[in-house]
């Protein structure tokens, strides 16, 4: 995993002392809330002073930065902590720079290094953003579709062939519903399995596909409904018919297997 060169602890875990009071910069000020964060503000100050990012005059920048921070009524508390953290970092670096040294510092020992690396990386991200924004502005005007157009033909998309268990389960649900709806329908004409089987296969031949739940509901009595359910089970089990439920709890469609068209009539 490529690590960023940043060695600074994440900002949200930082607790920093309040900044020392400082006079505002050169009087030309921009509202603090236009900045995405402390790094954005620092970059702005560096550019305004036309400073080389690799050689930041820390004392001057710290003064300018704190000047902005003083107008903290413009930022909410969440954001203030982030700005204050960088203020503390600036003050820390400034104090390191002031330490007397016997020899010149090598580049990697420069106390500003950490900040400079962060600023350079952030500057790149910001520049990339302006290019990405251009792309977004073009793409956002080009509308794509997130739906499938109407399809032709009879066969449905990726049907899930139904297990007997699922068929039984949806039967159970319908039974429950019917029980709740109407307890009167218990009595009705006597229906034999043979009669019902003939009726069902005839209907399948006629319509090619039937909506099972609809058919089921059309039965006059619970007993008749039960019989027709077992007929469908029988037809599926003997591979004469196919029952498909596209989605759980949706209706079940039943049709004859093409190769079974002839034999079905005799069953």
């Amino acid at each position, binding site marked *: 995993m490529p690590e960023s060169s940043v060695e600074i602890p*994440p*900002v949200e875990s930082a607790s920093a002392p309040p900044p020392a009071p400082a006079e505002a910069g050169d009087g030309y000020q921009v509202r603090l809330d236009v900045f995405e964060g402390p790094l954005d503000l620092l970059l702005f100050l560096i550019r305004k002073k036309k400073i080389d990012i690799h050689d930041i005059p820390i004392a001057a920048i710290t003064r300018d930065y704190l000047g902005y921070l003083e107008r903290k009524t413009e930022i909410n508390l969440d954001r203030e902590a982030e700005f204050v953290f960088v203020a503390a970092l600036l003050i820390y670096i400034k104090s390191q720079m002031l330490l007397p040294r016997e020899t010149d510092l090598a580049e990697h020992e420069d106390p500003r290094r950490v900040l400079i690396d*962060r600023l350079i990386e952030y500057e790149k991200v910001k520049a990339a953003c302006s290019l990405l924004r251009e792309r*977004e502005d073009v793409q956002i005007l080009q509308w794509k579709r997130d739906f499938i157009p109407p399809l032709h033909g009879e066969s449905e998309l990726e049907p899930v062939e139904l297990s007997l268990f699922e068929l039984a389960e949806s039967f159970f649900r319908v039974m429950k519903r019917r029980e709740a709806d109407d307890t009167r329908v218990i009595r009705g004409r006597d229906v034999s399995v043979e009669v019902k089987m003939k009726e069902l296969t005839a209907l399948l031949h006629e319509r090619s596909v039937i909506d099972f739940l609809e058919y089921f509901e059309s039965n006059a009595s619970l007993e008749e409904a039960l019989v027709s359910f077992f007929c469908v089970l029988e037809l599926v089990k003997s591979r004469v018919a196919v029952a498909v439920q596209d989605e759980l709890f949706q209706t079940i469609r039943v049709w004859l297997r093409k190769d079974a068209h002839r034999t079905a009539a005799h069953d």
Partner: protein
Amino acid sequence: MTDDTLKALVESLIFVSQEPVSLERLQAVIEGVPAAEIQAAVEELVAGHDAGGRGIHIIRAGGGWIFATKPAHDREVRRLLQIERKNRLSSAGLETLAAIAYRQPVTQSEVSAIRGVDSTGALKTLLEKKLIKIVGRKKAPGNPLVYRTSEEFLLYLGLDSLDGLPSEAEIAKILEEEKALEA
């Protein structure tokens, strides 16, 4: 298969798909036609749609081709779909997305460190927009979640792949231009 038939077939396949269709996928679906022929058919199609008098065109994104309306019709499309305006990402959102795109795989605290700003909220929005995804955990103290950009990210910005992100050179050029403007 004649050129015209192949072109028509490819058009219907790209049209029907909900995501960019790659050459490999086209080849898997259209059996027995060499990739080069399919590629040529796509290119002819793309050119045909770019021509005037067409309201839709085929764009390259996310490693494949996808149909989209032309930008000129945005206002009317929005009126038809009753969408007031299409929201761009906020600058915080875009910045966070850029940080993730360039440094992926990254954790929340790495993104926050790059930006100097807590990025939890922006990450949430990007996750909801499906522009980024959680891909696992980092083997580091606290085992933080690791984020990457998604396929939708490529489509959103019209990038063919992550290689299409602005390069170091392009970024350097932008920075120079910005500095020149200020000078």
